[in-house]
């Protein structure tokens, strides 16, 4: 195995809410290799989004440390791009202007040294537009696009500065099931093409298994890593694999574990009681 790309060591995150201390993350440790695709699932409140946002530099950690290529992270950086669930596109800019947004930033402009760099960057914007199947919508505004197309613009924009790490926070959470399947194959294609390391947070277990080479299951109160599952599927995947026995077995295992750790057992017991009573009455 290649050396660790991201090293998360004993990370804790505490904050105060209404005077009470909340432990959002407790002693989280994880190592990720370069070009790995790791997905994070867990019951709400398990801190999966918080962990992603800390890696992205959008939130601070209370204890422990996170390093990328051996350097501790301190705030956001162009090596880590983030895709949000929604409302992150700039509605006053066209699709192409959104994708090229980072080129106006000093941090990116400093990396451009020659005319050929500029040319390469323009070519990259066009290539990303094509890759995302958006070439016909270059001059459209985001609110003229469907939800799935908007997320493709957001992904293209995040990929524009060639980030080594792509952080995705429930990027397909607001999309319908069919669009989501298309996006899954697209993002897997992007992963192979760009050789980026992807951290992907989702509440959809099937999505987590289909996309990830590892699935990290987190548990709430306090937010922590519960189990890390290796996905027993080949690197090349297709939608039919979702029906494979090993896929279904893993899905069942993960779902059961989420239920166990979510602390919502009473609800399930109540539901079971109701379903048991129903046939008796019929």
């Amino acid at each position, binding site marked *: 195995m290649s050396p660790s790309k991201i090293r998360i060591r004993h990370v804790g995150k505490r904050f105060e809410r209404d005077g009470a201390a909340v432990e959002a993350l407790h002693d989280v440790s994880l190592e990720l290799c370069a070009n790995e695709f790791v997905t994070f699932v867990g019951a709400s409140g398990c801190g999966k989004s918080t962990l992603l946002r800390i890696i992205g530099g959008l939130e601070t950690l209370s204890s422990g440390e996170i390093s990328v290529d051996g350097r501790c992270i301190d705030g956001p950086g162009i090596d880590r791009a983030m895709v949000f669930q929604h409302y992150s596109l700039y*509605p006053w800019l066209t699709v192409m202007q959104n994708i090229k947004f980072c080129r106006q930033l000093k941090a*990116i402009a400093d990396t451009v040294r020659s005319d050929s760099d500029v040319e390469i960057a323009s070519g990259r914007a066009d290539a990303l537009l094509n890759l995302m199947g958006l070439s016909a919508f270059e001059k459209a505004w985001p609110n003229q696009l469907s939800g799935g197309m908007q997320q493709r613009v957001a992904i293209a924009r995040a990929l524009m500065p060639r980030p080594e790490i792509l952080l995705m926070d429930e990027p397909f959470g607001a999309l319908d099931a069919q669009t989501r399947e298309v996006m899954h194959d697209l993002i897997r294609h992007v992963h192979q093409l760009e050789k980026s390391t992807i951290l992907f947070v989702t509440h959809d277990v099937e999505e987590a298994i289909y996309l990830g080479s590892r699935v990290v299951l987190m548990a709430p109160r306090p937010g922590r890593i519960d189990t890390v599952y290796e996905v027993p599927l080949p690197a090349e995947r297709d939608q039919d694999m979702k029906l494979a026995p090993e896929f279904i077995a893993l899905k069942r295992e993960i779902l059961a574990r989420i239920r166990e750790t979510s602390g919502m057992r009473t609800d399930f017991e109540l539901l079971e009681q109701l379903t048991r009573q129903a046939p008796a009455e019929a």
Partner: protein
Amino acid sequence: MATLNPVAPSIAAPPSPAAAPAAVRPRVRWWVIRGTLPRPVFLMLAVAGMLLPLLLWWAWTTFGDPDPVFMPSPGAVFARILRWWSEEGLIGDIWISVYRVMAGFFASALIALPLGLYIGSYRPVQAALEPLTDFIRYMPAVAFIPLVMLWVGIDESAKVLIIFIGTFFQMVLMVAEDVRRVPMAQIEAAQTMGANRGEILKLVILPSARPALLDTLRITCGWAWTYLVVAELVAANSGLGYAILKAQRYMHTDKIFAGILLISLIGLLTDQSFRWLHRRAFPWLHKR
């Protein structure tokens, strides 16, 4: 399954053309919450809404025959406007009033926009300035007249200052609120692309808040007009507000009506210009 198969194609088949004329014309439903209305109907209702009070006013003064000092007729008011225009320098009054309102309005916008941007973006600025602004905005602008006369005298700047006092503090708070409404995801997306604070203000927050800011300017500009009469209480000898005050002294009710109507007409025109500008400047909001 086999029994279902023969049925399926007939369901999928398009309805035959012969059946089309039988389709019921969709009923016009006006009273749907946030529903739509055909444009001609909308315009008709808008015009009717504007004309109805005018009609009632005309009917009352024609058939009710009230004392003209109490309630002048629309015709008398219109004649008064013409006389004002031809003999009493209406254009000059309009010009000086527009100048005062716009000077006060632009002066407050000039300071309120950057200040509100910083209050809405940086917590320390908000903590230091927002409570104070909130406090001052409840101070009655009218009551400042003696102080303004004492401090800056009775020339043009005094009138402009009254309008400034009336609009500025409200405007700052509204601008700050507009800025705070910029979605956090837009800001965070820029941060993860390596944008620094200045770039986020300039390239994300400002352009994102622009439509809301123009609306804030439109609304506060209307407020600036409402302070005109107050401002022209200060030793003015010209202007629409002054004309109203003078007419009040001589019980020229028709001129009071004329002045009020002219101010609201100019206000309406300004408002519509702002709306037009909104459609022109932010096409992405109006095009789908």
